[in-house]
């Protein structure tokens, strides 16, 4: 079951509005599929991304996967703890395993994403 306080992209990222920024991570389903995460490439703070654009890479023992921005915006923060502890994504995908924060260009883009129930139904 995915957390119901946020929205989900088909590419398995979640987006959660906190104040005027959107926190982004990957779903519990995605971390389970990837297996033990060994490396996370974080975007540079200040870069702009569009909805669906690449904004990082998550590597597991077996494979590497791109992270796509669920909505467009400017990267205002990244989770530096993942550099030394990428396993946080496995342990707490919806909390301590967050990946980046976006200042959204258009917050209504969140409406195009799936609810937790709709996302879970696609799995």
């Amino acid at each position, binding site marked *: 079951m995915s957390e119901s306080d946020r929205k989900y992209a088909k590419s398995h990222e979640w987006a959660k509005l906190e104040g005027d920024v959107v926190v982004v991570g990957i779903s519990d389903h995605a971390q389970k599929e990837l*297996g*033990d995460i*060994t*490396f996370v*490439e974080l975007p540079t703070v200040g870069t702009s991304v569009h909805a669906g654009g690449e904004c990082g*890479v998550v*590597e597991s023992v*077996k494979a590497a996967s791109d992270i796509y921005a669920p909505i467009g915006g400017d990267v205002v923060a990244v989770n530096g703890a993942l550099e030394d502890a*990428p*396993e946080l994504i496995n342990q707490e995908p919806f909390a301590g395993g967050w990946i980046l924060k976006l200042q959204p260009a258009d917050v209504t883009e969140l409406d195009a994403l799936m609810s937790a129930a709709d996302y879970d139904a696609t799995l």
Partner: protein
Amino acid sequence: MKRTCLYDVHVALQARMGPFGGFEMPIQYAGIMAEHLACRRGAVLFDTCHMGEFLLDGPQVIAELEALVTCPVGSLAEGQCRYGLLCNPEGGVIDDLLVYRLGPESVMLVVNAGTQEDDAAWIRGHLGATTTFSNRSDDTAKIDLQGPQAPRMVQRLLGDAIVGLRYYRFVQTLYRNEPVLLSRTGYTGEIGVELYAAPDQAIAFWNDCMELGAEPAGLGARDTLRLEAGMPLYGHELNAARNAAESGFTKSIATDKSFIGSDVVLEDALRQQRLVGLALEGRRAAREGDRICDRQGMTVGVITSGSYGPSVGHAIALGYLDAGHDATVGTALCVQTARNELQAVVTELPFWTEGTARRKVNDFLEVQVKGESHE
């Protein structure tokens, strides 16, 4: 897709299953990292029933195998096994295998799952009329129990057969009143055994070991463990198109005999590349097929295996460097991946230097047995 006799056990343990060598095999249970570290610290079980076992008997079997595999066969004592390569006439590797000397005129070969049928056809085609060949793969189960706790578990379950058993030696003994072959070999860099048994005994052994605290491990951890130990995986470091000698596993290649492919394999000038270990700077892994470049950006080789190394704490890789490149241990190189350029340094193998595989088994047993060791 074939299933091993342990399939139901894996399903009950909620393993993630995947295809390997024509079998539906467990890829992971708790997770690759946890299983990998459990092998280095405790003991893990691998289902290796997918591997192939051939029994060969006859007065000419030793001489015939001597001409088929790269390793010396005639010098094997009864109760001893050896790693070798089966080559084609061009010096490429048809398979890598273990040769067990069961008796004066009796040998067991253990081969990879995916190559088993081709191996059987190739070997049979090179045996004389006096040698019998029996493919026992379907009725021989195999379990690897690996890790520093493994000898103690074997002692509890099989008694003193393990006492004094040296690396690459084996004994034929009884387990639950049925014959089994207990071999002090493995594919992890840690001390342990490979047990060959009938399916019922194998399932019992698996469950008995779990009760003693062994953890199940899948092919994912098997791959990271062997990579840290600097061991080759057929289809990656070794294949039919690559000269066996390029692997650098020259201890497995006898220079004082002729074997199929030896005209190529024993000719130094014919090696176009050589296998090297690469330590990468960070956690980011190189993957099979990535290019190895020198610091000027010239392509000088290719990666054959790569992963994060859970015990060494950084990414590691095996790859082939062009024979003309003068890299030695410490030489800085780059790996061009699909996404990035990674910094790498040529490193001595194995990457994992604290492995227990070659240590004396008696140091790992519950009760120290004095005077009975032959080590």
